């Protein structure tokens, strides 16, 4: 039904006083579209969705593993270049862990996601299955912890590259969700993760090729 016809009918049946249509302009140069009052109110919201919460809770665990890996590097690695890189990675990921905790706490949310493996007929998690994209499985972490010297450096770099790639995949998956990452703080954070970890992947690949 066209706007004019609707207005006419409303007038004939003594409907509510006319209010003008609500416009939502497009990009510069484009024509506007008409929206309802409910849509207008919805456009003002910038909350978060379930996917955002899961992302933050999972990324917390993801980052925690990176920090764990760097801990091993301190005592088991040999290349000073790798160690320096590891320090930088740990520093930035620790800062991000704080940020994620604050984001969750500030919204009254749990810092730890409910564990999907608990209650699964009670059997222990598969030691070969990674928990999140790119994360080292418990078996792989054990292998890393047993290595040392140049061998450790190699495993560390390979593992961390995969780990970072996993983080990028998590961000991509989040952005594919409808209405996700509207929250400005979370969207800023997600793009920092992408930018920093992409750069670190390139650096690690270069170091790995020279080992």
């Amino acid at each position, binding site marked *: 039904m066209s706007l004019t016809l609707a207005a006419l009918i409303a007038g004939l049946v003594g409907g509510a006083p006319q209010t003008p249509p609500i416009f939502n302009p497009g*990009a*510069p140069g484009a024509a506007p579209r008409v929206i309802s009052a409910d849509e207008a*109110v919805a456009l*003002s919201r910038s909350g978060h969705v379930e996917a955002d919460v899961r992302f933050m809770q999972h990324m917390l665990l993801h980052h925690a593993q990176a920090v764990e890996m760097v801990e091993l590097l301190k005592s088991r690695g040999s290349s000073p270049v790798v160690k320096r890189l590891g320090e930088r990675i740990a520093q930035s990921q620790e800062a991000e862990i704080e940020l994620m905790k604050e984001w969750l706490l*500030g919204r009254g949310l749990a810092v730890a996601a409910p564990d999907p493996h608990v209650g699964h007929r009670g059997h222990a998690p598969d030691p070969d299955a990674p928990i999140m994209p790119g994360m080292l499985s418990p078996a792989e972490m054990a292998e890393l912890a047993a290595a040392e010297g140049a061998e450790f450096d190699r495993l560390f770099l390979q593992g961390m590259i995969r780990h970072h790639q996993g983080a990028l995949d998590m961000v991509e998956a989040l952005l594919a969700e409808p209405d996700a990452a509207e929250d400005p703080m979370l*969207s800023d954070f997600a793009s920092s993760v992408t930018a920093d970890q992409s750069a670190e992947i390139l650096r690690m690949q270069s170091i790995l090729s020279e080992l």
Partner: protein
Amino acid sequence: MNIRSLLLSSAAAASVLLGAAAVQAQTAEGQVPPVGSDVRSTLSPGLHDAGQAISNLTLEHSVQPAPGFFDREAIFAPPTQEEWEAMRARAAAVEAGTAEPAPPPRYSALALANSDMAMSNGKLFVGNFNGFNAYDVSGDGAPELVLSVVCPGGQGDVSIHGDLLFMSVEQNRGRLDCGAMGADGDVNAERFRGIRIFDISDLSAPRQIAAVQTCRGSHTHTQVPHPTDPDVLYIYNSATSSVRKSDELSICQEGEPGENPETALYSIDVIKVPLNAPEQAAIVNRPRIFADRETGEIAGLWKGGRFGVGGQNTAQTNHCHDITVYPEIGLAAGACSGNGILLDISDPENPSRISELFDPDMSYWHSATFNATGDKVLFTDEWGGGTAARCRAEDPHTWGANLIATIEDGKLEGQSFFKLPASQAAIENCVAHNGNLIPVPGRDLMVQAWYQGGVSILDFTDPARPMEIAYFDRGPVDGDRLKVAGHWSAYWFNGRIYASEIARGFDVLRLAPSEQLSAAEIAVAERVMAETINPQTQTRPVWEDHPDVATAYLDQLARSQGLEAAVTEQARAFVERWRAGRIDRARAAELSRTVAAVPDNAPAADAARRKALGELFGRLGQRR
């Protein structure tokens, strides 16, 4: 609504103070009007039915928020300290499995807040964090909504020029296409932060025609006409938020000037709008208006922090919050975070700072308004950022108040403070906010919003003794806790006061005569009309010769006992005959002489009134 940055450098502070002709606006005991309490201090709460108090005003209309621009849940309640603790405790409990997670908040702070206003062509434009609305106020009846535009991005400061509407956008979620999806990431090609330009020539099809991107977005903006070319309009953009990444906008860089002299901090944006092709509007200059005049140091003004023990914490000056221009006198007054400044805008593309003011009681210099003659500036201090209760009985009355300054030999001199004289509840956000002049000749009157402190009109004709002459206030929007509401702006537009209310819509008020303001003074003010009014672009009011103008001056002189009784009687009799259509030119000329014969010891305000009245009679004496 503001940014605090807390670099403390006492050596730098001292040097700024010594370098700047800074005068503390500390006045003698008893000269600053005390903050007491009156009926406004204990009004009953309510969203639609709060108690009201009004003095020397009548409330003509209260207009509800436009459809699509209201949700009770969107009214922002800042978490209290206790609530932060409780949130942490709850999160721990959730982790331990003993509690359910709290539902996420649906709205960001102030998502549907009404904000600043402008008037054009009989329509009142009310900005909102979610877009803007326009109301036809040209008739005698209630304002009528004629246009609603949704385009999120906050804060929605609006101005009009002809068929163009300019809007300030600063939030990261702002998008070029006015969408709701937000703009995620540090670098996003869809993001928009800056000044939007809309074509509103056809109310049935408003169009966004340009979006000028800026490094820190746009918090407020000010139109500056070109001195000679009517096809060019300048916009001064004041931005207070974070600098964008250079990958998103190549002209933007961060950092303090010591590490990065190309920083986007420490300037304003000058945007040039070719009115024949407004889609080509672009930034033409980003002048370093805070630079030290001698050394050229870019960060030349207040570095942030407290001056002295127990003093107010004054924000760092690396941006302006709002600039008011007065093109006819070639000056602009900038309220720039840690300082108030005066700019020479005779070359609008290259504004230059000619004076600056610092005061240890000012927390955040927020707005500036010139008086009509351009020899005073009233600055406001937004201590608490607008979301905090700062008009409590225990709050110092020189904090979160107006600082009244005079301009002497091109230099700003602080004279006094004025604060809302009635204390407000601890659950009412309240601090000095936006307003403009009421065009009564012979007096400096300003109507102003104080958030939930309501609307107040003050007389600052005597810069050392400002006083309130009228008010309107409601009780808190919520009876249990502080929720951000109240009047964002209160402006005099074409005979009425329009006051935008963050959560409740807007109010239309009319002046009522009192001992402080006569019917003739009101009549003169109500007769001053303009097609377009953007409050931060001041124009000199023009009062056509009319019996009410003469009566207004006579009423003022009677109030101050500034005119001899016999002369007053003769002048009033003359004016009565003038009203009846009979002008005795000889008598007019004679009155002109006696009125203008000002005694040497007359106060400046009275001298000015007598001079103006004398000139008015003089013109009548020469009429053919």
